[in-house]
């Protein structure tokens, strides 16, 4: 296989200071996995298992206690231009118009205004939002705002996208449309993406592989390749009979229904 590795975690362990002084909580324990070029990998696991911590390490916001993360072969020690992330919250800046929100990352990186605007208009047009360029975030629906957030993430042209439950705050119908938009965009642009989700359907519909994490201290307990067509089209993939089997396998692996629910609010 000559496809390059885009994102890699090597023996990553992360500990946080606990509530009582001196105590430590191990959020993730010895996690290793790699994403190849243009691959979309979903990461599922119980709440509080450290999924978001992995994302923060990958984007260079946290330094792991042990182990390393690599992006495009470079060790991640600080935020870098190869990676961009998108969260459940759209994080649009309310005082900026839609177009200025999309250009935010480019502006911070010091690109020329003409280049920023051209890139942002191109992305907004592809998401059908060009006519809303001069609107303000509060004037848009949740689904539109999340699309703007995706445009902002893509604007800086990262090789790796880290997506943390990007659609969990929108309604079910909007989510289906947004999943289709994201999957199509990732495929067309040939982006590599790590998709954190707790929606097992979403994991199966959108990814090439699903990684399953355990309860805290989180580690990878399984990896399931999704051998279904239409990764660029979740609505099309939904028609395949195999989807249900994969979801059932994931439920089985996470022992959903066989153990009491994890304590809420235990996430670090």
């Amino acid at each position, binding site marked *: 296989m000559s496809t390059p590795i885009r994102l890699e975690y090597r023996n990553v362990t992360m500990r946080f200071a606990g509530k009582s002084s001196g105590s430590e909580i191990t959020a993730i324990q010895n996690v290793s996995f790699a994403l190849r070029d243009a691959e979309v990998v979903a990461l599922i696991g119980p709440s509080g298992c450290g999924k978001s911590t992995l994302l923060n390490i990958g*984007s260079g*916001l946290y330094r792991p206690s042990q182990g390393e993360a690599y992006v495009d072969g470079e060790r991640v020690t600080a*935020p870098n231009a190869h990676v961009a*992330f998108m*969260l459940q919250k759209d*994080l649009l800046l*309310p*005082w900026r118009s839609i177009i200025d929100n999309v250009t*935010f990352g480019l502006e*911070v990186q010091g690109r020329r205004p003409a280049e920023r605007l051209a890139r942002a208009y191109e992305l907004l047009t592809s998401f059908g939002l060009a006519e809303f360029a001069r609107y303000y975030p509060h004037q848009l629906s949740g689904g539109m705002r999340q699309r703007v957030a995706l445009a902002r993430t893509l604007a800086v042209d990262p090789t790796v996208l880290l997506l943390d439950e990007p659609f969990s705050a929108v309604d079910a119908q909007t989510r289906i449309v947004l999943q289709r938009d994201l999957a199509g965009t990732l495929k067309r642009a040939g982006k590599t993406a790590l998709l954190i989700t707790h929606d097992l359907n979403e994991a199966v519909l959108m990814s090439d592989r699903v990684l399953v994490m355990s309860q805290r201290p989180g580690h990878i307990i399984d990896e399931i390749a999704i051998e279904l067509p239409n990764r660029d089209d979740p609505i099309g993939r939904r028609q395949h009979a195999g989807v249900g089997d994969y979801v059932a396998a994931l439920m089985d692996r996470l022992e959903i229904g066989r153990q009491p629910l994890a304590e809420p609010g235990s996430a670090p």
Partner: protein
Amino acid sequence: MSGARNSTARRGAIASLALLVLFLAAWEWGPGLLGIPPFIIPPVSAVAAEGVRMFNVTHLMFHTGVTFAEVIVGFAIGSLLGAIIGYLLGMSPSAELALSPYILALQIAPKVAFAPLFVLWMGFTVYPKILVAVLIVFFPVMINVLTAIRAVDPDLINLARSFKATRAQIFWKVEFPASMPATFAGLRIASTLAVVGVVVGELVGGNLGLGFLLSFGEGQANTAMVFVAIVMLTVVGGIAYLAVILAERRVLHYLPARGYQGF
């Protein structure tokens, strides 16, 4: 929708105007009906006549102008200092920890009590008045800015960091604009407090400003003159407040419309 809001606004304005007429009528004839002598509550017509006399004889507009200038300068300096200290403390938790007991002590101390001290230091000039205003304006602005900086969503800062934003970029592109709504709430309070600070300074000493006219009228038992000074002080405070509101509407134009709020 907007038609309903318009008619609500119109009904509100009419009721407001009716209240004003009622108030003025009560002021004009109420004291006479209740047997209150005019040296306690002069009727509105007498106050208006006194206002005209002061305009012609006592340089009313000059004194109003002095007070207004003191208010504006005190408000501007106090707000600027409050905002700067608020931002610095907001970005440095250890500095806040070190300074908070002293800030709290100064906050609890009644600022107007410093007025005689400042007059002793600086004489019967405009400076002690401005200084009292600066001191009294400082706190609401600083506290609001500090709280707003603390309340900025850490994920927004992480987003900026993920784009490799520098500390200065994070401040100017995220923290500073995010603090604007709370800063303006502080400025609104500060604009009215600035008038209080200046008047107290003028009452304590000097022969300039509406505060001086206030104590002069008191000394002469000229109740109407005191009322005129109070009315003009209200006008000065109102202009300052209105200026803040107009600036706020320009700066915070991106906030969702909250419907008619009056002032």
